[in-house]
């Protein structure tokens, strides 16, 4: 593989990792939203 190939792989790895980490934070946000909704519903009952 050429130097350009290694360069592309390195930066692809960086962006893929950041993308998946942001996705995991998004999943945590959605889980927290659901928990808040559950608590709200329990409080209203």
């Amino acid at each position: 593989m050429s130097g350009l190939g290694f360069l592309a792989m390195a930066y692809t790895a960086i962006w893929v990792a950041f993308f998946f980490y942001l996705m995991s934070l998004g999943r945590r946000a959605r889980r927290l939203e659901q928990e808040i909704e559950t608590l709200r519903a329990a409080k209203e009952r």
Partner: protein
Amino acid sequence: MSSRSDVAGRLRPWSDVALPALTGVAMLTAILFVFVVVPDEKVQGVVQRIFYFHVHLAWMAFGGFVFVAATSAWYLRTGSRVADRYAEANAEVGLLFTTLVLITGPLWARPIWGVYWTWDPRLTMTVVLWAIYAAYLMLRRLGNGDETILRYAAVLGIVGVLDIPLLIIAVRLWRGIHPAVMLSDDPEAGLRDPTMIWGVILSGIALGLLFAWLVSLRARFAAIDDQLALRALESERR
């Protein structure tokens, strides 16, 4: 239908708007410099461009782990939940950055050294650093909020940071083969073009802002998690 701002409460102008916007602009500018503006380094060629991010990923991770140690000490002294949340957030983002250091380093090493990996002192100490903070996060998860386990983890967070000065001086102390990345004794090699210096500065700013943004998001989710756990406990008691 609820939006993300429902989780975070009110929209915060700095961490929800300004910080991600600044991070995006800085990142695009840094990428433009690294891929378009800066010339190839004379000795290493195009593959040297990996270092514009590799070096700052490492420094941001080190900064994050120093912050873990400082906030862990604060937590041990005062029992502050805020300090503990920031320690965890910095450890998690620091571990992500260290993982990327360990991925991008070998991708540079293969065309330059001819091998992906060698047990050079600096590389070995980086793996040790990664393992320490991975253990720190695993310990916290296994403890499941137990106060004693959180205190043990805090001690590990403080002790772990001692690896960083060793890692930095490893090249000189044990004569490793890891290069002095930015500076070279060869008058023609290294960062000789002014745009290369700008590439280094801009990628540092971009990754610094990204680190701060990710930590602020992570710490905020942990704070909401804490509040929810507290409310759930209160409603169980009633």
